């Protein structure tokens, strides 16, 4: 019998998009992040069935539905523990996690710390617009302390902003970078690097909310390449040096900050005890 091998056609970024139309506001930065994620998957030619995209709750967390890879739109702040479970149970999958600043750094803040510390091989893409958009514009953990755009905080939140990159570096993330949705091709590069780098990767994305933070349209004139005077691609493996560069960061530096060399967490290959042994221990 002469059976021909199936012809393997190359996947384009459009193949990674689903038929669902995003409900984001026209002009939202998240469209470009979706585009960057699909382009990154196409660049790496990852089979769709080998990729899982896990998200929490919020505007940006709708993203798995707009892709054709496996997706799980979980609950608020819990994308990282779910993704950790997926990756440890199925280490063969490429696991991406996506969400916003409220989801990831407020209700999910504690999970963020421990995901960095555990260093499971995940790529966490945070679309940061410094506002809760889905609930109509309240201050989030990364909102400036003097932002008076919400009636809930008419004099501004009055508290210091959460610093995602500093926290990630302190907590043990193995790859840390920042991109801008207005520079999607650079973002593709960062996402590809994050996926390829072992361990926990944080890709912090400045993604304007044109509805509740219209002033963020100015990001495009504020972003600049590299941290601490170094180039876009010049991430350092030295944590002390990365901290030094962060001290000079104005919040708009884009590129790779840190490329650590800690091996990724690996779950034990064999179960610690057989099911029968465990059942015996619990027998009354």
């Amino acid at each position, binding site marked *: 019998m002469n059976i021909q091998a199936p012809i393997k056609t190359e996947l384009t970024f459009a193949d990674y998009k689903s038929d669902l139309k*995003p409900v984001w*506001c*026209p*002009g939202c930065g998240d469209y470009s992040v979706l585009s960057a994620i699909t382009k990154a998957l196409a660049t790496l030619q990852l089979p769709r069935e080998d990729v899982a995209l896990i998200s929490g709750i919020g505007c940006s967390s709708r993203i798995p539905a707009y892709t054709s890879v496996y997706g799980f739109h979980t609950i608020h702040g819990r994308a990282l523990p779910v993704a950790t479970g997926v990756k440890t149970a199925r280490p063969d999958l490429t696991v991406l996690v996506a969400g916003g600043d409220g989801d990831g750094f407020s209700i999910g803040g504690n999970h963020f710390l421990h995901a960095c510390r555990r260093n499971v091989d995940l790529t966490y893409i945070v679309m940061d617009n410094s506002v809760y958009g889905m609930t109509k514009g309240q201050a989030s953990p990364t909102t400036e302390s003097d932002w008076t755009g919400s009636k809930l905080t008419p004099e501004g939140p009055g508290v210091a902003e959460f610093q995602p990159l500093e926290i990630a570096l302190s907590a043990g993330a193995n790859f840390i970078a920042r991109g801008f949705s207005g520079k999607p091709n650079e973002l593709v590069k960062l996402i590809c690097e994050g996926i390829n780098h072992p361990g926990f990767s944080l890709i912090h994305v400045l993604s304007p909310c044109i509805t509740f933070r219209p002033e963020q349209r100015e990001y495009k004139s504020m972003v600049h390449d590299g941290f601490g005077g170094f180039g876009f691609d010049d991430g350092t493996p030295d944590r002390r040096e990365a901290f030094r560069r962060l001290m000079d960061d104005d919040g708009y530096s884009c590129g790779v900050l840190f490329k650590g060399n800690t091996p990724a967490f690996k779950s034990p290959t064999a179960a610690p005890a057989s099911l029968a042994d465990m059942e015996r221990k619990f027998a009354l």
Partner: protein
Amino acid sequence: MTGFKDMTGVPEFLAHAITLEQEAAVRFDELAGMLEVHNNHKGVVDLFRKMAHFSRLHLAEAKERAEGVDVPKLAPWEFKWPGDESPESGTIEDAHYLMTAHHALTLALASETRGYDFYQGLADKAADAQVREMAQEFADEEADHVATLKEWLTRYPEPESTWNEDMDPPVSVD
């Protein structure tokens, strides 16, 4: 926008031409989709779909020119665009849920003009004579599109400044 970047030859040039049209088609479809979802009934959805259709026709032409040519596969960040994205990818942040045909045509015109500038830049400055020649053909075609869009724009003058007023805004802060 950054400066001029030359092509190594026709294959690299065609890789850019194909991607330019492909990304333009996807972006125009995306713009149409986002306005459809947000119930924009001002003819903008059809207009963006039409632009996407034209981009696909040009994509087919570019692919035809590439037949038999070993077109290199480039990663998104390896393209030599003058700016951050392929020139005819209309800027997402210029979209608004209440935008009118005038705004849509202005956005499309800006895209086509960037496309024209890209090709004309290569036609004027590329080191390779074949690239210059092919780029001139593409630039002439883009010049036609620019002229057509300018003509369409005369039919859709700038709307009143109240075009984005919404008595029942979907995004009002409670």
